[in-house]
């Protein structure tokens, strides 16, 4: 596989949600080892952007590609998404949760990226919830659940991390730990796109501030040529 530099390139993205144009003509590029920090007011479209990169919200127009990634995979299939929801099944034990994700998620190791190699137990230890491995996930507190879902990112190699307000509802200690993990991911040659309201102290930051172009985002469908 080509070992050229990994680069996530977005060219004038336009996103509609619920029949409303969230933003249009947004372009940016993130290189290997960089973190793109997306900021902006409530409802400006940070989460929408991340979900679009994750392939969960369809693009109204624009292109999205991962240069240097595996050619036959979508960008979304080479990315981890860490959003508001934990994707943790309370009925399964912590370890069962992790094992499932490890064997279910298809790994992806393009050239120049090394990481996501740790075993489930190691990952839990790293995040300081190793002692809960055998417990049903139902017994975890909000914060612990969040860490469990974070450990998903450590056990399957994928170069792109998409993180939506990763530090929300985390106390100071856990927040520092998380930042550490993100930095190691960058060192391993991964790249990160994250939305946040607080400022994050990462190594190589490239920041993107979303602003409402005009008072109120234009509804997609009053634009001349679209119904909805």
């Amino acid at each position, binding site marked *: 596989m080509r070992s050229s530099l990994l680069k996530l390139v977005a060219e004038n993205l336009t996103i509609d*949600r619920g029949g409303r144009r969230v933003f249009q003509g947004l372009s940016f590029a993130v290189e290997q080892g960089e973190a793109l920090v997306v900021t902006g007011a409530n409802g400006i479209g940070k989460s929408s952007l991340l*979900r679009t990169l*994750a*392939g*969960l*919200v369809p693009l109204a127009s624009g292109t999205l590609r991962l240069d240097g990634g595996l050619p036959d*995979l979508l960008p*979304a*299939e080479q*990315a981890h*998404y860490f*959003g*508001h*929801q*934990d*994707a*943790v*099944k309370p*009925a*399964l034990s912590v370890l*069962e949760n992790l*094992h*499932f*994700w490890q*064997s*279910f*998620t*298809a790994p*992806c190791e393009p050239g120049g990226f090394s990481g996501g190699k740790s075993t489930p137990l190691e990952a839990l230890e790293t995040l300081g919830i190793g002692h809960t491995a055998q417990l049903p996930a139902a017994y975890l507190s909000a914060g612990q659940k969040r860490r469990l879902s974070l450990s*998903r990112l450590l056990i399957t190699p994928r170069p792109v991390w998409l993180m939506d307000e990763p530090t929300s509802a985390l106390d100071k200690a856990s927040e520092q730990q998380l930042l550490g993990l993100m930095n190691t991911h960058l060192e391993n040659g991964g790249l990160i796109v994250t939305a946040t309201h607080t400022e994050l102290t990462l190594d190589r930051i490239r920041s993107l501030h979303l602003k409402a172009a005009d008072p109120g985002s234009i509804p997609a469908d009053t634009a001349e040529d679209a119904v909805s």
Partner: protein
Amino acid sequence: MSGWAMALFKRDLRLSVRIGGSALVGVLFFLAVVTVIPFGVGPDLNLLARIGPAILWIGALLATLLGLDRLFQADREDGTLDLMMMSGRPLELVVLVKCLAHWIATGLPLVVAAPLLAVFLNLDPVSMAAVTATLFVGTPALTLIGAIGASLTVSLRRGGLLLAVLVIPLAIPVLIFGVSAADAAIHDPVPFLTPFLILCALTLIAAVIGPVASAAALRFSSD
């Protein structure tokens, strides 16, 4: 089954076994419906025996469809579905595997319970066997067709009833051939095998249409 499919299969089975026995609920509903009907129709044994297969099939139909609303919703609510779409596995297969696990956890118990309930409706052994056989072949089709409804209503918070309404018309052929195969075994206007084979064919068709359609619906509903 390849590794990931197996993992998914095991997980879904575990979940449906551990979470408050959702398998049990289906069977109980089946039981409830089948026992309620005599209260309505009245205790005429001949009549019951005559419409017995129908009662069992209708009970199974309702129990299956109404039990399907959580098939994708549970995964959607906690964000699992999003990750599944990003997982790089063909969504059609994911749906198929989930349906399989769901059928084994909730459909199979219905089939097993059928002979017992048949006793209440005083069916003779032959028709008892016939009904059970048809249910065994037919209920997978119900699950697979129902999966379409499940993925159509996945984003709505009130699955059950709407799902049933959407899917029942599509499930009518299965019901018809299931019941008539069972009847055919008892008093044969037609040989048992004809409707039975058609039933099998329907199940096979459903195994194709169901996953494809519901995968499409899931993709569209993702947001």
